[in-house]
């Protein structure tokens, strides 16, 4: 059984951090504005619909969110993008789940030396892990308040 000095482990962890961090996919979002009116940020509440369009609404644009695993991660990003378009109502047209495979770099620590003269080694290896990718597609609307 090999013993790895804590210093080597710490350096390996430091080395792995940016590499693994670089492999992680952050939330990706796309906004496709409709019309040429400049978007004004809407700081108020946003109504979410899933099965119908709001009445008397002006469509402001499409919003796509990707790179998240759960609705709790996707919806705040979705709402924020709707706000950026100036929308106070949004319709979620589609929530599409996907299961993908992503390569993750891990580090194997072992003893390269002999029993009497142990030399700690750190060797990178790539393993595939399944990741969930939720894609939320929707549209932002602006509805003026009923009087």
């Amino acid at each position, binding site marked *: 059984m090999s013993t790895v000095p804590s210093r080597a482990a710490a350096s390996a962890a430091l080395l792995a951090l940016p590499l693994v961090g670089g492999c992680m996919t952050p939330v990706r979002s796309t906004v496709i504005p409709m019309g040429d009116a400049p978007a004004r940020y809407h700081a108020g509440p946003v*109504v979410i619909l*899933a099965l119908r369009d709001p*009445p008397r609404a002006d469509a402001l644009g499409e919003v796509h969110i990707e790179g998240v695993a759960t609705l*709790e991660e996707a*919806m705040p990003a979705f*709402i924020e993008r709707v706000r950026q378009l100036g929308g106070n109502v949004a319709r979620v047209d*589609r*929530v599409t789940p996907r299961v993908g495979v992503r390569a993750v770099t891990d580090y194997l620590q072992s003893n390269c030396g002999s029993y009497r003269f142990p030399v700690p080694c750190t060797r990178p290896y790539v393993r595939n892990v399944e990741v969930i990718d*939720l894609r939320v597609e929707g549209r932002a609307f602006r509805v003026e308040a009923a009087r």
Partner: protein
Amino acid sequence: MRRAWVVVAVALAGCGHTSVHRWVIGPVGAPSRVPARVFSARGATPPAAEVALVEAVGTGTHADGDQAIEALRREAQSMGCDAVLRVEVAQGANTTVATGVAARLGQRADLLARVAEPPPMAALTGTTATGESSVPPPWSVQGAANATDAGVSDAGASDASVAPSANPAAPWGEAPR
């Protein structure tokens, strides 16, 4: 011998997990005993009032489409819904994800919002079967979300009380009273 079987059963049970996520967008009702119907995203969507976006994730021995859909169905029933619409499933080797919209069939959301009355505090407690506190209400201004273990969902007594919508008041005047 019997002990060995118990160990095997416990080991197998520990090899899989189903988690359910939801984002509430409509009035949540009391748990329903009526089995929720499931409609694919590729078929026609019947008229219904949306209540929540739901997602079920199964891993290991639970990475099965049927189990994920069953989890969606149970989650919908726990919110008083009788249907899960627009169901989509993605399967991997060790992970399965299903998404859908929990809804009440044959209802228009605007009418549902009008008849929704805030239930008494006593009725609120425990109606979501998620173990979360109902005071303050589990929904926020932008719609509440929470994750539960699918096994926790419990189709309890079917009560007609309907909690107010998670969504803020609609600007076109469909505010729940």
